[in-house]
């Protein structure tokens, strides 16, 4: 999968599962302030990403550090590279 394909899969999964507007989903968008997620959504986000990429996420610190959509892209790209 290319980097662009990974990013597209992340964005489309999150848009569908969290009913987000794709036009708001820039890499700089803060997932809490701009996209309206809250701490209760974090687990749902982990489950959506696990389902979309068929991997398990155990990196609690990295997940807690996520602030922007770009952070999610970088985190998932790192895991995809690691697993390939």
């Amino acid at each position, binding site marked *: 999968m290319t980097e662009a394909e990974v990013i597209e899969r992340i964005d489309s999964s999150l848009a569908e599962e969290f009913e987000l507007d794709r036009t708001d989903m820039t890499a700089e968008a803060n997932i809490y302030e701009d996209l309206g997620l809250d701490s209760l959504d974090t687990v749902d986000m982990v489950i959506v990403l696990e389902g979309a990429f068929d991997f398990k996420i*155990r990196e609690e610190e990295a997940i807690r550090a996520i602030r922007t959509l770009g952070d999610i892209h970088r985190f998932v790209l790192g895991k995809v590279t690691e697993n390939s």
Partner: protein
Amino acid sequence: MQYDSIIIGAGLSGLTSALLLARSGRRVLVLEQHPQPAPVVRGFSRDGFYFDSGFHYAGGLAADGPFRPLFRHLGLESKLELFPFAESGFDRLQISATGETFSLPVGFAAIKAQLGKQFPAVQAEIDDYLDEIAGKWSNFPYLNLDTDIADFGIQTVHGASLQERLQVFSAYPQLQSLLSMHSLLYGVTPEVAPVSLNAQVAGSYYHSVHGIVGGGRALVAALLELLAAAGGEVRCRARVTELLVADAAIKGVRLADGEELSAAEVLVTINPAQLPELLSPGVLRPAYLKRLKNLRQTGSAYIIFAKSRRPLEFLHRSNLFIQPQAGVFTADTDCPLQERPFYLTAADQGQGEVRGLIGVVPAGYAEVAEWAAAGMRQAEGYRAHKQRIGEQLLELFAANCPELAELELLELATPLTLRDYSLAPAGAIYGVGRFLGQYNPHPVTRLPGLFLSGQAIAAPGLLGTLVAGYLTCGSILGHEYLRGEIKACC
């Protein structure tokens, strides 16, 4: 009608939550769709015998047990009479293939000493394992009144499975059996069960083991009395069909007959997989709804209720687990009944002679699925199936225990019975399980005023369901407030 809090489900978590909220000054109503409260736990009588159907024994209730303060805080301590299980062997294991038997005595130190005597080569590993279990179980929120209550625990859903943890004992399959047999009491096979789940259930029993005189029926009666005294109401035959939402917050519920009841808080204690059906589209996000629907459920079982012509002294205050071959337990149902492990306990053993027997054997829903449709439980084929299963199980019990040669079958619960009483998908005996890698739901939802409780959010059993009530009410009333009240009772 206007309430502060409506609780859906009059099971142990629902009644516990109702009691805690009513005592905090709220006007509370519990709605139960069955004709009587706590249909799973209240048990039933047949032929003059009382049988428990949901509660058998509880761990951690000794005078110094971490569960005792919750019992006292709720007011159950003074309403119920507890009796201890046998010190020398509250649970026993029998391996069918060899006829070997083993006992677990009460108390971590006694278990270490006994297992060390039987398996001296691994005494150090046994000690390490039991220390780990002791540490984990007593650190459970509300048993440890100071532990952090994590709202997001990646670490807690990953980690070693019970099966992996017991690999250290692979040269001693009987020891693996003894340390994994309690998996039958939480319905998750050790291959996918977190060690922490086993700690929460088995660890509480390792600490101390009690029954309640009068069983689940007495427990439910006590909770109902306490709730009535606190001003809480319970309404049965009241099936909720919809959660009402306005201005992005919960507003109440609608019942099957169209009646609407309003409340600022609604606590849902039913199987969380069924919550999405109660909500209009768009109230909660697809990610959350899918997560609830996809929660993995525990397996199901046949539960036999029989009477013995002879007293069942050998089961008095001492349960028996039977396993075909030694090794880590499985609850595999892709095999004949004769090859499955099972659990035997005496009915109504709080007082007098014991002659009622309860046997629990893992079962797959597929075994009864052809009669799953409404009304099919009256079908001739289903009755014949039950008759056949009942006879096979009585034979199996007698083949393993000569003491059980003179049993008469009174009732047999199947996965369909469990489905209808607990309303769990596929008759899941312990509802949603705690599986490795699975995030069980949090008591707080994104919809203001909507909360979840029940064993899915904590653990099964009396301990798990009561703790779930505290976790949910702590999320509403403040954990520090509730824990402060409990500390004042210690």
